[in-house]
């Protein structure tokens, strides 16, 4: 797996943050629309909006977990290399 530089990691983290924030904003709008429809007696869209909201949540969580796993792996490789250099 290709390792990111420090600035590359920072950019990737910022991009993840922006995407998750955008997903949250969309989910907020979805929830407001669902509540309004529910009060108006329209129950047809509630299942659909629930599924879409869950997809947004799972996508955001997957993005976060992938990013953190990647960073962890990068740090492990970096600390191993430093350990080898110290021994050498």
């Amino acid at each position, binding site marked *: 797996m290709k390792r990111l530089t420090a600035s590359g990691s920072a950019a990737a*983290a*910022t991009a*993840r*943050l922006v995407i*998750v*924030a955008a*997903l*949250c904003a969309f*989910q*907020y709008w*979805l*929830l407001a629309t*669902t*509540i*309004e429809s*529910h*009060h*108006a*007696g*329209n*129950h047809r869209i*509630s*299942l659909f*909006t*629930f599924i879409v*909201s*869950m997809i*947004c*949540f799972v996508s*955001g*969580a997957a993005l*976060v977990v992938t*990013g*953190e796993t990647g960073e962890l792996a990068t740090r492990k490789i970096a600390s191993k290399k430093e350990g080898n250099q110290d021994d050498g």
Partner: protein
Amino acid sequence: MSDESGCVHEKWREDFPIGKDADEQICRRDFIRFLTLVSGGLALGNASIWLKSLRPVEGTFDKLEVCKVTDLEPGSWTVFQYPDAKTPSILIRRESGEFVAFHQKCPHLACPVSYERSADGRGEQISCHCHNGKFDINNGQGVAGPPRELRPLRMVLLDIENDRVFATGLADFGGKS
């Protein structure tokens, strides 16, 4: 881990004892985790609405005597609670003598609505004074202000027997009984 006085230290602070303001700032990682939590909460909110919609539809409504026909002059209105004590409703006797009734809560921000004559003095309308919303008195549909884009006022079905006005149920949001 705690020290002898019971204060909790983070391990890294022992290695870096000189404090900086930036230490107290929230890092991107913590913020994105928080946002993920918020996202989960919003998804749960949608789930609760869906589960609520699975419950059985409203059953029959009780018949409630609101007032006598002679209690209200044409062009006047009164407030009553229907179908339960927590739901204020408005009964209007129009200039023509016809009775109409709606739930009193504005769909915008739940302000109480009231009956009034329109600005030119020729028509009648229901008005919300909080944000200058107007409703059509025939069907409760928003015609001006914020309620234009929202659901209409829910119509209360009425029955007149022996010169008494009774509330007998709620119409669907299309104004149909």
